[in-house]
């Protein structure tokens, strides 16, 4: 691997995820988060070269809804800006690429969106093709259930296995002040929750909520000035798959596997097992098992620790859930994870995804030391 530019996460702030914030619009939620992320870095907005947001206009319920966010992002004097209709984690990748190109040295990456104002299950149905899949009303829970059935048939995993994964996340989430669901639940209790779409139970699904997030990225030379313990990017890659659900193997994630292979190779690691923790964006226990398989790790093992934050099963603010994974790895590597701190965390993997059934996957490898000398 040729030498790349060392880039680090140097700040992260988020609002605790809630089902519905009655007092603030999406942009009113975002503003204090950007202020706090910058304040933690000890800089004003003028110190940042680039801004990028992840949100979805269908969630905002207005065309060009993302433009409203510009008013609270410090967009004047005229800034370099970009918006992705994707989880904000993908925006972080874009900012990283711009840093590799030498165009910018620093960036804020924000995620926002009020899931409570619209109906996310109807909105996410529209990610599918309008002729065959969206038309029959498939929503993310239904497609995840199709995936779960196929996975369970291939691997022999049963209801108890799904309950165990969900329970482990719920136990971890109880220590996360930013999580929406903060009460631990036993596998037995979760296995008694009613079916949502069989074989997925209500207890195996994420609480769809809302938050606002802001991550600060900076290149070497600047990163050290913004943070005493930056989380350096050692590797990153993203891969996508076909949209048509029947045209790919739903029981595996080829794109997560390839993204992980490329990101780990960039990091100079032999596998994700060589890291201390993994934050992955799994919207069902089955997705967690599939992504762990793609990463070559066992979620039940003690190390690396998988989802010490409780993951998406304890908080799923759509468009920020992936960015929170990256923010959580920063908190862990910077020693800011509080009650959920993984002791001596030096290397971490963050995963984000987009689309039904893990269609597009992004994998980061981070470390406490610079990757390239």
């Amino acid at each position: 691997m040729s030498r790349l530019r060392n880039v680090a996460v140097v700040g992260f702030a988020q609002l605790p995820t809630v089902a519905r914030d009655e007092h603030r619009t999406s942009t009113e939620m975002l503003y204090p988060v950007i202020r706090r992320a910058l304040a933690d870095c000890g800089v004003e907005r003028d110190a940042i070269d680039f801004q990028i947001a992840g949100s979805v206009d269908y969630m905002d319920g207005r065309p060009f809804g993302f433009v409203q966010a510009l008013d609270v992002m410090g967009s004047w004097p005229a800034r370099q800006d970009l918006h992705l209709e994707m989880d904000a984690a993908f925006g972080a990748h874009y900012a990283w690429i711009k840093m590799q190109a030498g165009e910018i040295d620093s960036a804020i990456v924000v995620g926002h969106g009020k899931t409570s104002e619209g109906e996310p299950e109807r909105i996410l149905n529209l990610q599918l093709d309008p002729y065959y899949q969206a038309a029959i009303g498939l929503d993310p829970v239904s497609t995840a259930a199709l995936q779960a059935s196929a996975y369970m048939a291939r691997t022999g995993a049963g209801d108890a296995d799904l309950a165990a994964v969900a329970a482990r996340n719920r136990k971890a989430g109880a220590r996360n002040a930013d999580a929406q669901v903060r009460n631990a639940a036993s596998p037995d209790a979760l296995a008694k929750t009613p079916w949502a779409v069989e074989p997925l139970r209500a207890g195996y699904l994420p609480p769809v909520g809302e938050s606002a997030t802001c991550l600060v990225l900076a290149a070497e030379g600047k990163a050290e000035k913004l943070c005493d313990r930056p989380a350096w990017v050692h590797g990153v890659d993203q891969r996508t798959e076909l949209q048509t659900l029947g045209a790919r193997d739903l029981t595996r994630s080829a794109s997560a596997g390839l993204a992980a292979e490329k990101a780990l190779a960039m990091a100079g690691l032999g596998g994700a097992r060589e890291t201390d923790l993994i934050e992955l964006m799994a919207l069902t226990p089955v997705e967690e098992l599939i992504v762990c398989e793609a990463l070559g790790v066992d979620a039940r093992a003690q190390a690396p620790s998988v989802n010490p934050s409780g993951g998406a099963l304890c908080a799923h603010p759509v468009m920020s859930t992936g960015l929170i994974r990256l923010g959580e790895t920063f908190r862990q590597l910077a020693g800011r994870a509080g009650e959920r701190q993984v002791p001596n965390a030096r290397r971490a993997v963050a995963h984000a995804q987009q689309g039904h059934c893990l269609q597009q996957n992004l994998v980061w490898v981070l470390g406490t030391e610079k990757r390239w000398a």
Partner: protein
Amino acid sequence: MSAEPPKEPVKYVESAVHLPYHYVAGDYRATYLRALKDKRILGSRCSKTGKVFVPPIVASPETFAPCEEFVEVPDRGVVTTFCIVNIPVIGRNLELPYVAASVALDGAAISIYALIQECKPEDARMGMRVEAVWKPDGEREGRWEDILYFRPTGEPDAKPETYINRL
């Protein structure tokens, strides 16, 4: 199943998208709208420049500074720019042509969009002083429509330098 293609090929697929929304007003809008019921117009003041934004907003888009202080502004101001509408607009049943304008309320740093009535289109001009005409007491609901329209006050025109930066 017939092997023959249908005589009338399917040309389109109907795909109606139904997406209901239930928007949160937010505390800033709620405060602003409630005040309209009392014939009061509120703005918020930039903590850095002192500029007043109407309707109130949480942060200054210009300075990124918070705007936490609510201030009341008069229900009168100046036409900063205008146009004459000659075509019907969906949802607005008005006699054509009519004047639509940007109005900078006195003390406000930016203008609001306003319907101008009791004014012949040929009399409309930049710098013209206008005032709000409200719905009568008891009929205001805390909505933007509580202001029926703006009308000329007959005061002398404002000088361009007083409003040119508040378009």
